[in-house]
């Protein structure tokens, strides 16, 4: 029998997607341990758990708290204890930027919000039903911080869902989002057709059996690590005007532009996958969760005539063409920020994009592998000089091949459609661990 999930102790963040239309991320620094502990002690009861947050939750706002390595150290976790945490977490994302392909305008020295600063100790993530509730909570937190002079907001980011608020998540390029997400085996939930087998909890939460059939040793002290996860945060600007201009330059007709947009993504903007609808969009299929993931590549499209081998979704989920897929699954949370750019509008110079968290138990095996190999390896799947067309590290020197009969199309010098404006690695503790950190007992543990 697998160990049941301790739903009352795991933060809800990776377990449940909340019906939020707005969000706010605040990046905090603590002047000293006492200030950080006092702040945490006052908030811990408001943090949603896997038990308290569900689809029938009456709540209007959901709080999540996570810490960087320097944040854990500031709260009194000893260096000896921190040494039992994985090296990549201790180094932080900025130090590992080159592994992730974050150079040039995406390099840490260009990041916004002070995110490359080791003074970032904690993040508080607020998801809210609407903007009004988000703003109310923001005011409340601001008032709370006036009572704690040793806790300061280094930067913050407001997020809002994009219109028309019809229950469908979209990002700024216009693609339907959140179509595939791993299902955690221990929840008993059934994956939708084509979503792959449910994934063991140990791939997302520390202290559970993973897909290798074992429970890896926990970082110490166990009271701090059990029921925890790691989060990779990415603030990714989307260059919407440049993306639309690229489509116009490459294709003469609106249909041609839509097809090219689909070839880059692997899905039409409706979400309909190219493997199932190679020539024409089928919005009804795109929105049908029972059908929109129900496809494989090996037999249906081995050479990428439908969905190019280098398309975004074919890199992010190799389905039946990848090895050890269950060991690379991750849970994504987040949303869009910045105002939508109206169709036909010129570039307004306003930053807009996706700010997301990728949750897992091993940043190096799951998140960094994805970025290093699937996203940015120019020789991915025997391609030559290509990177993920949407989220890859582009400087105009990589290409995109669209297989076609009789002759393929090769787009030379693909421009960058996205830029990473900030990032960080966080540890997302369980509730017991949050109380442990707030108590100051962590100082007694070495």
């Amino acid at each position: 029998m697998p160990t049941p999930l301790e739903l009352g102790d795991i933060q809800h963040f990776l377990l449940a997607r909340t019906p939020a239309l707005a969000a706010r991320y605040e990046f905090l620094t603590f002047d000293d341990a006492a200030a950080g502990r006092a702040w945490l002690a006052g908030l811990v009861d408001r943090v949603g758990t896997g038990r308290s947050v569900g689809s029938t939750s009456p709540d209007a706002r959901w709080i999540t708290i996570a810490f960087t390595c320097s944040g854990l150290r500031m709260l009194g976790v000893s260096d000896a204890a921190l040494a039992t945490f994985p090296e990549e977490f201790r180094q932080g994302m900025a130090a590992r930027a080159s592994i992730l392909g974050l150079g040039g305008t995406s390099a840490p020295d260009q990041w916004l919000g002070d995110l490359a600063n080791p003074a970032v100790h904690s993040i508080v993530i607020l998801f809210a039903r609407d903007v009004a509730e988000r703003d109310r909570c923001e005011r409340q937190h601001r008032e709370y911080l006036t009572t704690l002079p040793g806790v300061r907001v280094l930067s913050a980011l407001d997020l809002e869902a994009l219109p028309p608020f019809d229950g469908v998540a979209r990002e700024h390029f216009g693609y339907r989002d959140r179509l595939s997400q791993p299902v955690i085996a221990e929840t008993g939930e059934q994956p939708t057709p084509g979503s792959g087998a449910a994934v063991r909890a140990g791939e997302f939460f520390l202290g559970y059996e993973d897909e290798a059939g074992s429970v890896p040793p926990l970082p110490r002290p166990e009271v701090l690590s059990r029921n925890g996860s790691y989060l990779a945060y990415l603030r990714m600007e989307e260059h919407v005007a440049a993306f639309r201009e690229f489509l116009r330059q490459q294709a003469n007709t609106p249909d041609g532009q839509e097809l090219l947009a689909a070839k880059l993504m692997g899905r039409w903007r409706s979400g309909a996958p190219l493997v199932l609808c190679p020539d024409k969009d089928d919005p009804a299929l795109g929105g049908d969760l029972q059908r929109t993931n129900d496809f494989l590549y090996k037999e249906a499209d081995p050479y990428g005539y439908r969905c190019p081998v280098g398309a975004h979704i074919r890199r992010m989920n190799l389905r039946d063409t990848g090895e050890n897929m269950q060991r690379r699954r991750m849970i994504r949370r987040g949303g869009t920020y910045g105002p939508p750019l109206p169709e036909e509008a010129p570039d307004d110079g306003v930053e807009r994009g996706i700010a997301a968290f990728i949750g897992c138990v091993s940043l190096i095996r799951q998140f960094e592998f994805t970025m290093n190999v699937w996203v940015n390896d120019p020789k991915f799947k025997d391609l030559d000089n290509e990177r993920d067309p949407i989220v890859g590290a582009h400087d105009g020197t990589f290409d995109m091949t669209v297989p076609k009969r009789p002759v393929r199309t090769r787009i030379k010098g693909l421009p960058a459609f996205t830029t990473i404006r900030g990032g960080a690695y966080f540890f997302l503790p369980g509730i017991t661990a949050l109380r442990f950190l707030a108590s100051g007992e962590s100082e007694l543990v070495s």
Partner: protein
Amino acid sequence: MASNNDWSTPKAMAIPKEGYFTLQQGRYGETYPRTPACHGFTIIAKIKPGTEAQIRDYGTKIEQTIAASPHALAPLQLHYLRWVLFDIGPDKYFMYQGIFDTDFDKYTEDAIDLFTATGVNTVFEKLEGFPMDWKTNAPAFIKFVREHQCPSFLEYGEYPYVTAGEIKKALALKQAFSSMLDHMQ
């Protein structure tokens, strides 16, 4: 992917002492370049006293494993593996040399899973300093492999930069042509 290289001109590459020309950090440390002889590793480690016969026996076991499951190692895109036992003074050493088309840093975890599936890890357990908790401690396994990797200072390719996939395609094509010509007799 010999697109930028001429497979018909043999090529040698001298490599600096570090094993690379410019430092490029991979997930687990520095990465090594692709050479005319493809990617590869050379792992050398001292064996535990008295384990030589057991290690040699594993050669037969792995032969049987691959006979039963010929494509077990396919994900690594291997060309060749070589296992050697040799003496340095009174001590016995094991050398494990692999030549393949993937960057080892990129597929480290997959390789370790395959080592495990094909019993290579069982040989590793006979090596001094190998972490015996490797089953639940992949980072320690990876650290051991990296610490015992000896980078080449020269690599040569008679048909440089050609991948195993390209060789297999060429042979399949030759076979198809040969068969076609036979049918035209």
